[in-house]
């Protein structure tokens, strides 16, 4: 598995007595778009939370580009190039687009112990570029994110992940609560990932969405991987049957 960007080996996770992940092993190949499907409680979110540093695994190991890593908090994942976009949307509605793009990673003119003066010029110019790169057309980086539509907000979150050169982008049910038109926009973003050389993990309830934009589908049930096939080798019916 020399071209695997992330490998997980035998991951276990218990939540107060519930065995949520039962020895999951998975290889994520560089540049592919992987669709992760499964019912509620199948372990998808647990797996993703472990990769993005929200939770830690009780057992098993994670390799990023072949090296074993420890992901204890979200910042560790981000430093490894793993960005996660959540269904609740990881943007702050009361802040501007420019400020949202740089949350936690603000460019500073100088800083003492990590606290410093913001480089607002750089933030403005880079955010205009970042937004344009994901084909999102917004009037101004100073507009509040709260005024954008759900799809545009996901666009901002994706633009942010792109801007920080993430290698792996995890999209955790990003199309929930979105209209049909906006959903197709988000699916367009996922398709665009490959062109930018980003590996994507797309989690969805909707099989059609997954078959629309992914190269490979992994199905989980009861904390285990029950199916792992390339899109062209399987069908929506087959995936439904194993769930």
């Amino acid at each position, binding site marked *: 598995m020399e071209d695997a960007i992330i490998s997980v080996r035998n991951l276990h996770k218990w939540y107060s007595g519930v065995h949520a992940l039962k020895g999951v092993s998975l290889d994520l190949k560089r540049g592919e778009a992987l669709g992760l499907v499964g019912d509620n409680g199948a372990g998808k979110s647990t797996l993703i939370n472990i990769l993005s540093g929200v939770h830690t695994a009780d057992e098993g190991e994670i390799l990023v580009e072949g090296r074993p890593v420890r992901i204890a908090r979200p910042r560790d994942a*981000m430093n490894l190039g793993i960005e996660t976009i959540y269904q609740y949307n*990881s943007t*702050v*509605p009361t802040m501007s687009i420019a400020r949202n793009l740089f949350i*936690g990673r*603000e460019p500073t003119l100088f800083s003492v112990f990590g606290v410093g*003066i913001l480089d607002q010029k750089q933030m403005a110019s880079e955010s205009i570029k970042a937004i344009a790169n994901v084909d999102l057309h917004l*009037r101004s980086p100073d507009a509040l994110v709260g*005024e954008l539509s759900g799809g545009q907000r996901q666009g901002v979150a994706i633009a942010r992940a792109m801007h920080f050169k993430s290698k792996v982008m995890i999209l955790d049910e990003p199309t929930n609560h979105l209209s049909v038109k906006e959903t197709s926009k988000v699916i367009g973003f996922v398709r665009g990932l490959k062109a930018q050389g980003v590996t994507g993990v797309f989690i969805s309830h909707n099989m059609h969405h997954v078959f629309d934009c992914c190269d490979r589908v992994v199905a989980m049930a009861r904390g285990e991987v029950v199916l792992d096939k390339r899109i062209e080798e399987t069908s929506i019916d087959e995936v439904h049957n194993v769930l």
Partner: protein
Amino acid sequence: MKRLFKTYLEKPELAGLILLVLLVVIFEIRSNGVFLNQDNLRGMLGILPETGLVAIGVTILMISGEFDLSVGSVFALMPMCMAVLMVEGVPFPLALLAGLVVCAVIGFINGYVTIWFEIPSFITTLGMLFIARSLTIVVSGGFPPLLPADLPNWLFTSFVGPGNMFRMSFLWFAGIALLTSLMLSRTNFGNWIKATGGFHPAAASMGIPTARVKLACFVLCSMLSGFAGMLQVLRLGSPLPSIGEGLELQAVASAVIGGASLAGGIGTVAGGIIGTILIRIIDNGLVLSNVDANWFKFAIGFLTIFAVVANAWMRKRAKAIKMEG
């Protein structure tokens, strides 16, 4: 032009600012020009720093999504601790340092209990309101200690400036206001405060140390309140254990009048200060206009509700202005 209009409508402190200008004009006319004369302004500017500093702390804490009801008690406890130490012969700078440490510890406890036990800060700090007030009286032994005669009043309460317009405390206030305002709007830490209060899950998932950010805001709020209490005690010349009672709600009113949101994420230091000035102006202006002073609290209450309604309305209007493109 439309863009500019929209940007200003979105400013949270706008409603407060408009009310401020209106009230100044009304009181100036009603008091036959006494309101804005030098003596009256001097009196108001002398008291402003004390409530203003508390409002700054409360505003910043509210932006981070938390609440502090213990500021009024800390306002009394800090100078009382200093006074007791100084009676024991501790020099002023050391007593000041010790007083600030007491405030920092109280702020830390407020934050720690709130965050790690996941209790609403409303409850934590309500408890601390009683605890700190009780400690103030216990520490004093029931009698306010006599302050020593050689206090550095020149550094905190003496009048300075053209026509002896300001007290030194005003310069402290202006300096702290400027620094905290810059911190909130121009530093990455300010960005973290707004993100933490604006939408906590997003801030946490972006790797912001939200617990530490909130903790820092709690500590800052307590220290500003204690420092403000010391300014008042130095001005009055005696550490009364009852000072600052009711100040916590006045500070929340200041922050809210200035556009801060109870839900967090929205607000500015300037707004908190505008709110404080409004309250001070009403206090003073009602007296000068020969209105029964008992209407003071009525006016504050009305103003609080009115400012919030006006703010909500303006934000809605701003949102309705669609920008092309």
